[in-house]
């Protein structure tokens, strides 16, 4: 087992998680390749995300718009801003060709907003591309374990 690689990808993914929990969106937007996709599917078995309905299917333009909306103060569902803390663990490297690394991990997120504490558990897949001493995200797919259930508004980035 390549524990050095797991340490490297874990450090990168933890950093991303920390950025999202602390609203460091400008830096988060720079963590992506130009053609990167952020996807939150509905169907847990789905792989053809482009041709199916998702909760989110964001290219660079949509990620920027999502971030702008979260910080705009124009949206009553995100003011007050929800507070989140997420734990990411159970990292497993699925593929590594020296440049591209596929990683799967578990994410447990707690959200608090307006008297309500919510919990979202997800299986998260990353396709990372080496960039200098770190990585860029080429694809992030967040599969909520209750994605087929009725959800309420998620006013942040999973």
């Amino acid at each position, binding site marked *: 087992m390549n524990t050095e690689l797991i340490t490297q990808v874990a450090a990168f993914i933890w950093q991303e998680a920390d950025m999202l929990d602390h609203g460091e969106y400008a830096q988060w937007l720079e963590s992506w390749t130009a053609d990167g996709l952020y996807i*939150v599917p509905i169907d847990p078995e789905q792989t053809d995300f482009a041709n199916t309905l*998702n909760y*989110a*299917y964001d290219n660079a333009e949509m990620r920027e718009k999502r971030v*702008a909306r979260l910080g705009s103060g*124009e*949206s009553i569902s995100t003011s007050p801003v929800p507070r989140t803390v997420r734990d990411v663990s159970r990292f497993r490297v699925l593929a590594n060709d020296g440049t591209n690394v596929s990683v799967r991990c578990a994410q447990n997120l707690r959200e608090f907003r307006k008297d309500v504490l919510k919990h979202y558990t997800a299986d998260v897949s990353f396709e990372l591309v080496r960039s200098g001493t770190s990585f860029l995200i080429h694809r992030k797919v967040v599969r909520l374990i209750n994605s087929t259930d009725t959800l309420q*508004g998620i006013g942040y980035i999973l």
Partner: protein
Amino acid sequence: MTNKTDAQQALTLGDRVQADRVHTSLYTDPAIFEQEMDKVFSSTWVWVAHASEIPEAGSYKNTYIGLQPVIVVRDRKQKVHVLLNRCRHRAATVCEGKKGKTNSFVCPYHGWSYSLDGALRGVPHPESYADQLEKGELGLVSLRVEEYAGMIFATMKNDIEPLVDYLGPAKKWMDLFMKQGGGYPIKVAGEHRFRFPGNWKIQLENTTDAYHFPLVHKSFLSSVDKQTEEMLDFVTGSGYVEDLGNGHSVMVMIPQLVDLEENLDAPIPARFAELADELRAEKYSEEEVRRIVRAVGGSGFNLNIFPNIACSMAFFRVLQPVAVNETEIHHAVITMDGGPQAANQARLRLHEHFQGPMGFGTPDDSEAWERVQKGASSGKDLWIMLNRGLAGEKPTPDGRVSDVSAETGMRAAYQQWKKLMTA
């Protein structure tokens, strides 16, 4: 000991719906909710599916009429049945899962099995019944089903008017809405499901509420191009709301997008220029390109069909009451069945942009509705004001019309509610 005030007790159900207002208890009183399940949802036509959701023999969908679980299923002869999802033996549901395909329905508890039309086919170990089990009378309860423009409705009442009479002038708007197939049949290709802690009528009202759009959806409007933002600036525009009778109404927000087969020569909006080029590269004719591109953005109106379905610009809005203060909503995405992949991808992305728990629109609607329910628990003797646009309301051949942000559609729905609840 009752917790109702004297003023509330003095009001009959009929008193609680006035020409220009409704009583707050319509949102908050569990006893009224219970009556609605019977007098509204079990007494009128209720939408259960679009035909594309059950495309083949054996395709089924599970849904509800009011609080009663039902199965919508297509049998081997392509006939659609709506069956109460309840084994006639000891009541267990015989079908689970949102959608699927099956040859029969078998109760998991004792193995009673039913065919796709609901007939009881067999029971395990029948000898204990000594040949006295009336199988012909113990089929799944089958409801009256009628269909218009691919929209399947069912009713628990056998003596009400035919569906086409119930829909009345709403039919022509349904026909117009289906033109967003762009020359292809319409297909439901998934849905966003969400719940909000509030009464179902709060959502019903919202479908013909243009007034909230620029305020609640400011963050969405900030995320679209200038041309789209101007198109969606309809509150001061020439649109209108029309009462179509039987609680149905239409809100025309963008009059130039009422008929998607008209004005095909109009310039293609900037946001669809890339899609048009992609279709041209795929050898679609200029006329096809224009028809498809014009259809991609959806219709310029919301048609509210009482009590639970709306044809809303580019999607179907399905309303499912859960409790007096809990409602489930489905926003079903519509694609062009067999249409160009690029156009369907555009429709999917447009839907994701506004709808769903991570959309730029729905969560803000949901927050507003939640706050209506919360506020409605204060001042229980107060009224919900629905008098906007009343002064300018005029009769039309189909009903009554007023300006685009008039509460005419809501008044129409509440008059139908009153008719059913006091019948």
